[in-house]
């Protein structure tokens, strides 16, 4: 199709502001999907996404509107997937920015709007949910206009739920968003902005063709990774896969690659044709690195092979997921997994438990650290137990955080950020009522219970988003936990020196409560190197006798002893101490892995 009649756009919004509902309504209004086939949030195909109301995997749908081809590129709605969002936005010329008429701008609205501006997109601002009784369309429109520097009168007022104003939004897309301007005669280039895995057809890449033309069955090369494959099928989603003979500059569609491994084709890479390769790839490819790590162990060690298989399967569809085998003397065999962020971790964990029916023990999450040892090359540490005790310097990842709260909670949020080693950056009144607070915080402080704390201290009113802001040196130290004089690998943590004492104390106190009394005193210690910073003792039992045992009691007593011994087999041995798995669980929960 003539590029002048093509419009490529995304919908961006804070969670629950109605992005998916608007997408659904667009499919209906354009008659891409019949009324009968309409399911709510059709684009969110995974059960989990539907339940959480968020989109994890972006997809692209082609619709027709008044003689134009509109490609709607859905974006993931969470900070963990910022890179995927930015690639999706790069595939567009414009974005519909949706803001809830009752809520106004939230942290993700901001983050997404900035991303769109960075990518030079034309923004079509929309205030949604005007049908709600508590809606304040004018207030919200005013905030949006302030944010993107436009006129509040240009902000559209719609209800995606009832369909009111949706047609006008489509008209605005055609009118305001520029047509793509690729060079049809140049060597072909297409941006991979998403991929998924099909059991039968392998990796399917979602692409925006920027220049030239790709044809079915031709040899294609991914420029960053060098992967080559044949384009087994080209097509677009409508919303089902619809094959076409070719995809041309300006168009959005999919490529069936036949590749059996998602890691061979990464989001952000540029495809070109082997017959006429492009000289340079499209800008912006980044190898996304996991930032948050945690150990995943099966509660029942017999489930280890199932966990391994499940991770393999998840990895097929999730190139950002990283895992490698980990052995803990306390928790047995498992995997150290790397995630883009906390939500990503939660999603993986929930999918493992729900889709694969696994019972998991997840260690406290930690971030990636850059370590310079006294002697030797710098390296990255993903597991506190790998942190050398003697280091020259340690760097930890920092984030730029935006928190938006009603003004009465500003003090609480500032206090929380200060407790978490936050550095105040600036503060801005978005309206008379709502304030944006910008802080720089160590990511390590966020992965514990920051989000929970933020929600509880602001009675749920705060919205929060962040951007990675690079690594910085920190006064960090490794705290080990010793039971019966032996280090419990799964409980080591890396923490700022100022907080080490308090944290160590909490850990040993909790363990003392959880470890059953043994036949001897069990010291529980928290230590930095060889220096003990907190200590508790599980006092020895003073008695354990089978009081009476005469001729008639022997069988019963024998069975009691057998039960006693077999009960111990289910416990983990650490330093000759039997520690029930529940004890580890309690301590790991203390570390705040639960949301």
């Amino acid at each position, binding site marked *: 199709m003539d590029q002048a009649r093509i419009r490529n756009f995304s919908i961006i919004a804070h969670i629950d502001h109605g992005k998916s509902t608007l997408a659904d309504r667009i499919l209906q209004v354009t008659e891409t999907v019949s009324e009968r086939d309409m399911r709510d949030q059709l684009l969110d195909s995974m059960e989990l996404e539907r339940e959480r109301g968020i989109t994890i995997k972006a997809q692209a749908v082609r619709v027709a509107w008044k003689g134009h081809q509109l490609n709607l590129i859905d974006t993931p709605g969470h900070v963990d997937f910022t890179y995927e969002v930015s690639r999706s936005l790069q595939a567009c010329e414009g974005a519909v920015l949706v803001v809830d008429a009752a809520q106004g701008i939230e942290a993700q609205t901001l983050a997404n709007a900035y991303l769109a501006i960075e990518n030079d997109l034309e923004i079509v601002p929309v205030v949604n949910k005007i049908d709600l009784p508590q809606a304040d369309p004018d207030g919200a429109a005013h905030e949006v206009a302030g944010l993107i520097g436009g006129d509040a009168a240009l902000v559209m007022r719609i209800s995606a739920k009832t369909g009111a104003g949706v047609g006008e939004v489509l008209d605005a897309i055609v009118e305001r968003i520029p047509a793509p301007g690729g060079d049809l005669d140049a060597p072909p280039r297409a941006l991979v902005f998403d991929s998924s895995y099909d059991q039968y057809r392998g990796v399917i890449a979602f692409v925006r063709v920027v220049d030239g033309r790709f044809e079915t069955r031709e040899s294609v090369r991914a420029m960053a990774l060098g992967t080559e494959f044949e384009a087994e099928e080209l097509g677009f989603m409508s919303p089902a896969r619809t094959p076409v003979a070719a995809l041309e500059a300006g168009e959005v569609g999919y490529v069936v690659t036949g590749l059996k491994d998602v890691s061979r084709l990464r989001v952000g890479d540029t495809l070109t044709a082997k017959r006429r390769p492009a000289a340079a790839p499209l800008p912006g490819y980044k190898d996304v690195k996991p930032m948050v790590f945690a150990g995943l162990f099966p509660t029942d060690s017999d489930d280890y092979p199932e966990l391994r298989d499940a991770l393999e399967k998840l990895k097929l569809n999730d190139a950002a997921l990283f895992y490698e085998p980990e052995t803990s003397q306390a928790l047995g065999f498992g995997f150290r997994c790397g995630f883009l962020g906390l939500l990503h971790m939660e999603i993986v964990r929930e999918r493992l438990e729900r889709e694969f029916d696994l019972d998991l023990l997840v260690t406290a999450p930690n971030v990636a650290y850059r370590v310079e040892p006294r002697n030797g090359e710098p390296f990255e540490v993903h597991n506190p137990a790998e942190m050398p005790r003697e280091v020259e310097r340690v760097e930890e990842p920092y984030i730029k955080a935006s928190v938006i709260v009603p003004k009465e909670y500003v003090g609480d949020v500032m206090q929380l950020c200060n407790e978490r080693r936050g550095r105040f950056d600036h503060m801005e009144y978005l309206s008379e009522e709502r304030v944006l607070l910008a802080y720089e915080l160590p990511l390590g402080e966020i992965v514990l219970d920051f989000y929970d704390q933020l929600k509880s201290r602001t009675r749920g009113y705060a919205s929060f988003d962040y951007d990675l802001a690079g690594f910085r040196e920190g006064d960090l130290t490794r705290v080990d936990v010793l039971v019966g004089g032996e280090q419990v690998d799964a409980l080591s943590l890396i923490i700022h020196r100022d907080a080490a004492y308090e944290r160590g104390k909490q850990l040993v106190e909790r363990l003392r409560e959880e470890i059953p009394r043994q036949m001897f005193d069990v010291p529980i210690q928290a230590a930095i190197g060889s220096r003990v910073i907190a200590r508790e003792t599980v006092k020895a039992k003073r008695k354990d*006798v089978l009081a009476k045992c005469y001729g008639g009691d022997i069988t019963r007593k024998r069975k009691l002893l057998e039960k006693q011994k077999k009960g111990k087999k289910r416990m983990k041995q650490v330093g000759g101490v039997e520690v029930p798995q529940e004890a580890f669980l309690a301590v790991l929960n203390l570390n705040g892995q639960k949301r």
Partner: protein
Amino acid sequence: MTVVGRSAEHESYADALLADLELARPQLAERLDTVFVGGGTPSYTEQPALVRVLAALPDANEVTVEANPETVTPELAALLRDGGVTRVSLGAQSFDASLLGVLERRATPDDVRRAVHALRDACFDNISLDLLYGIPGQSAAQLERDLAEALALAPEHLSCYELEAKPGTRFSHAWGDELGRQAEAMEGYFARVVERLEMAGFRWYETANFCRSLERDGRQRDLRAQHNLAIWRGHDYVGIGVGAVSTVAGERRRNDPSLRRYEVALRDGVPPPGAVESLDESTQALERVMLGLRLDEPLTLSQGLESVIDREALERLRERGLVARSVDVGSVAARVSLTRRGRFLGGAVTAELLRWPEDGDELTRVEPAGTGATRLAG
């Protein structure tokens, strides 16, 4: 051998017991080492029935009868003496009226004293008292008083049991919470009992049993309960009566607890119904170790016993000072015993020390059976 409130039935039960004893007679030596009449309160039995049973018993070096203090009159004491009884075990439990009330005992503290005096007057020179500790509401001071009262009666032997409130019983329903609250305070009671009795010259020869030591006894007798000692050393025993248990040649037999079925069978001259548990070699060995370690004398680890010991655990427990190990002069077999601290943790230590067969190895079969006679259950 009591049927409370049904004294008319005592004679018929005595008939059954005697029939049971006759059936067991071929298994028994002419003269036995020990006889123990217990498993309840034989002293409640109507006297004519009791006389008949005592008369029928084979001769033995030790004949013990269990008695409740309130039943021990001078008349009963004389009857027992004349019936060949050499040792009486009195269920004193406590000398505190309120604690006896908690235990729902009929006896008063004075009953216990009177019973001991009556037995002494009838020339009994081997009297044992049972004491309970860890009774709901029992203070440390009350425990001290109980021990002092018991010692003041100068018994030859004392059995001290921690109160076990079985879950689901009316007692634990009524007192469970109280016991929970006191659990920690009461943890030291056992050690206190041992300390106090040893101070008074008693030998802590078994987990829950104490006897006046050789040196303290004027006649230098071995005052351990010989009947039970034999059981702890793994000897065979025959049980007679409803619910009685026998262990003979690797077979454990438990008579059915129904009095009616017991009497009906014996009236017909057939062994009473019951269940048999076959004890394979490793089970016998496990029991030998379990029982042997209750004693203060070392247990010789013959080859059979060696096989049920977890060697790693033995080393670990030795390092922790809970188990002692020695080798006999001129013998290859090691001997093990629990250290003093190990004895306070006997159950846990023994459980850890033993090596159990894996699941499914257990060879037990249960079938109806009969016969049983050194132990007379009532």
